[in-house]
C-alpha cells in the first residue's frame, strides 16, 4: 500500500517566498567550510538544512537537489546526514512501517508483498560499500554548458548499504519463462497526472548475475533518511544513481522492454566510446546510461591554497570506478609533464571510494598545477580533455588543483 501523497497544504505553503521558515533553513555560504567559496559553480549558493540532514549546498528547493560540501568527501564513508539528495518529483513526506509494503508483481509465479519485518526476517542480508553518484554530477562544469541540474562535484557519496539481494527476492516470487526486465517504482509521486512517474528498469540478466544489487534498508548501519530512500531503496553498485530508486514500493517483472519515459527518453547517453560526441552536436544513437566511468578527485590541498616551498606536503584524494577496481592513481605536480604513482589506501571493495595519497616537496616558490589520473583494472582511464554530451552526463576528466608555494 502506498503512503499518503505529499500534503497539499504543505505544497502550497512551499510556494510562498520570504517566509520565516525559509530564513531558518538558509545559511550564508561563507559559513561553509572550505571549497564552496572557491568554486565558481557554487558561488552564491546558500546552505540549507533539510529534515535529517546537516547543512548542504542548495541547488534546488522543490523538488529538492542538495549537494554535499567537498570536505565530507575526504573520508571513505559519507555520513547519512551529509549525503546528497536528488528527486525529480516530490518525495514522500510520511511513511508508516505498519502499512508500508514492498510489492513484487508481474511475470512471476507468486505475486508477493513484504513488510519491513519480512525483509529483515525472511531473507539473509548482505552489506556492500558502494558509491552512489548522480549521472549529472559535475554538470555545471560542462563547456559548452547544458541545461539540467547545475551540480558542482558533490552529487555523490559512499556508504555501507545493507539489505536483501534483489535476486533472492525475485527467486522467492519465481520468475516465469520469458522474463526480460524488472521495473522499480517508489513512493515519490508527480505533482501533475500528466508528468511521467519516476520508474526505472534493469534487465533480468543484469540482476540475476549480480548478487550485490540490493533492496537496502540500512545506510551506514542506520535506517535510511527519508530523503535518501526510507524505508528501502534499490542499490545498484557500479551503476549511476538514477537506477537506485528510493522509497521503493513496487517491483514488477516484465516479459517485454519497459517503455517508460525515464528509461526511453531521459537518462540516455550517446552510443559512442566514453559517451562522448563533439560539443554542441546531437548523438546518432543513444542507449540508457549504465556503468560509471573511472574518476579521481584531489581533496587536499584545495584550489588556491598556499604551501611552503622546499617543505614536504601531502596531496590526497579519493578514487572510484564502475566496479572493476582501481589499478593506480598517478599524480602530476608540473601540469601534466611528468607523473608519479600515488599510494592507494585500503581496498574497501570494488564499488567503494578508495583513498590515495602522495608526498610532494615544491622545489621552489611559484605556481603549481596538481593533477590526478586514475586507471582501473580493465585499463580504463580518465581523459585529459573533458567529454561532452547534450545531457551533461558522466563527466570524468582529469581534475586539477592550482596552488602557490611561498
Amino acid at each position, binding site marked *: 500500500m502506498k503512503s499518503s501523497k505529499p500534503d497539499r497544504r504543505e505544497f502550497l505553503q*512551499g510556494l510562498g517566498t520570504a517566509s520565516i521558515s525559509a530564513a531558518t533553513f538558509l545559511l550564508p555560504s561563507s559559513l561553509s567550510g572550505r571549497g564552496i567559496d572557491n568554486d565558481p559553480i557554487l558561488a552564491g549558493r546558500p546552505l540549507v538544512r533539510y529534515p535529517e540532514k546537516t547543512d548542504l549546498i542548495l541547488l534546488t528547493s522543490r523538488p529538492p537537489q542538495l549537494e554535499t560540501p567537498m570536505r565530507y568527501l575526504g573520508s571513505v564513508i559519507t555520513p547519512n546526514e551529509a549525503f546528497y539528495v536528488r528527486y525529480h518529483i516530490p518525495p514522500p513526506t510520511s511513511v508508516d512501517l505498519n502499512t508500508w509494503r514492498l510489492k513484487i508483481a508481474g511475470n512471476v509465479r507468486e505475486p508477493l508483498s513484504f513488510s519491513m519485518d519480512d525483509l529483515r526476517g525472511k531473507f539473509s542480508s548482505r552489506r556492500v560499500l558502494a558509491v552512489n553518484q548522480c549521472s549529472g554530477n559535475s554538470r555545471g562544469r560542462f563547456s559548452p554548458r547544458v541545461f539540467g*541540474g547545475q551540480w558542482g562535484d558533490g552529487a555523490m557519496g559512499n556508504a555501507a548499504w545493507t539489505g536483501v539481494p534483489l535476486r533472492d527476492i525475485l527467486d522467492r516470487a519465481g520468475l516465469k519463462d520469458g522474463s526480460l526486465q524488472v521495473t522499480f517504482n517508489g513512493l515519490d509521486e508527480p505533482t501533475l497526472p500528466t508528468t511521467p512517474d519516476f520508474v526505472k528498469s534493469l534487465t533480468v540478466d543484469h540482476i540475476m548475475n549480480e548478487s550485490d544489487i540490493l533492496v537496502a534498508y540500512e545506510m551506514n548501519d542506520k535506517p535510511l533518511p527519508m530523503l535518501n530512500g526510507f524505508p528501502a531503496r534499490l542499490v545498484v553498485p557500479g551503476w549511476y544513481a538514477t537506477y537506485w530508486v528510493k522509497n521503493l514500493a513496487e517491483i514488477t517483472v516484465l516479459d517485454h522492454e519497459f517503455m517508460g519515459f525515464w528509461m526511453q527518453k531521459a537518462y540516455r547517453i550517446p552510443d559512442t566510446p566514453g559517451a562522448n560526441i563533439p560539443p554542441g552536436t546531437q548523438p546518432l544513437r543513444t542507449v540508457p546510461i549504465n556503468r560509471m566511468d573511472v574518476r579521481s578527485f584531489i581533496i587536499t590541498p584545495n584550489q588556491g591554497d598556499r604551501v611552503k616551498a622546499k617543505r614536504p606536503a601531502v596531496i590526497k584524494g579519493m578514487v572510484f570506478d564502475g566496479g572493476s577496481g582501481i589499478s593506480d592513481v598517478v599524480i602530476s605536480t608540473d601540469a601534466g609533464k611528468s607523473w608519479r604513482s600515488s599510494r592507494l589506501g585500503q581496498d574497501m571493495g570494488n564499488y567503494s571510494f578508495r583513498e590515495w595519497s602522495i608526498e610532494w616537496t615544491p622545489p621552489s616558490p611559484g605556481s603549481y598545477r596538481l593533477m590526478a589520473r586514475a586507471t582501473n583494472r580493465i585499463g580504463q582511464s580518465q581523459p585529459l580533455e573533458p567529454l561532452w554530451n547534450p545531457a551533461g552526463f558522466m563527466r570524468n576528466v582529469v581534475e586539477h588543483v592550482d596552488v602557490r608555494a611561498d
Partner: protein
Amino acid sequence: MKAGLTMAGIILTCLAMFAADLSPKKVIKLPADNSMAELKVGPGLKTVQADCGVCHSTDYIVRQPHKSAKDWQAEVTRMITAFGAPIPKTDEGIIAQYLATAYGRDGK
C-alpha cells in the same frame, strides 16, 4: 487541581515522546522554496511564476546557464511535451521570451 493537570500533562508528554521514539512512522516537513532565488523582473514574469511554479521552485530556472532564444524555446517545449507542464498555448511564447531575455545570451 492545577498541580494534578500539570502532572498529567507531564506524563502524557513523556508517553508521547516515548511512543514517538518507538513509532514506526517517519514524517518529515520540507522547508519553503528558497526565497533568495528570485526571478529577474521582466515582461512575462507573472506568467512564469504561475505556470512554472506549479511543479518546481524558481531555482530550477535561476541556476541554468544563459542560453540562446532557440535553446530556451526548446526547453519550454520539452516542459510541455515531456513533463506535461500546464502551459496554455497563449503562454508558451510569453514564457520562452521571458527566459530568453532574462536568462539568455547573445547569439543564435
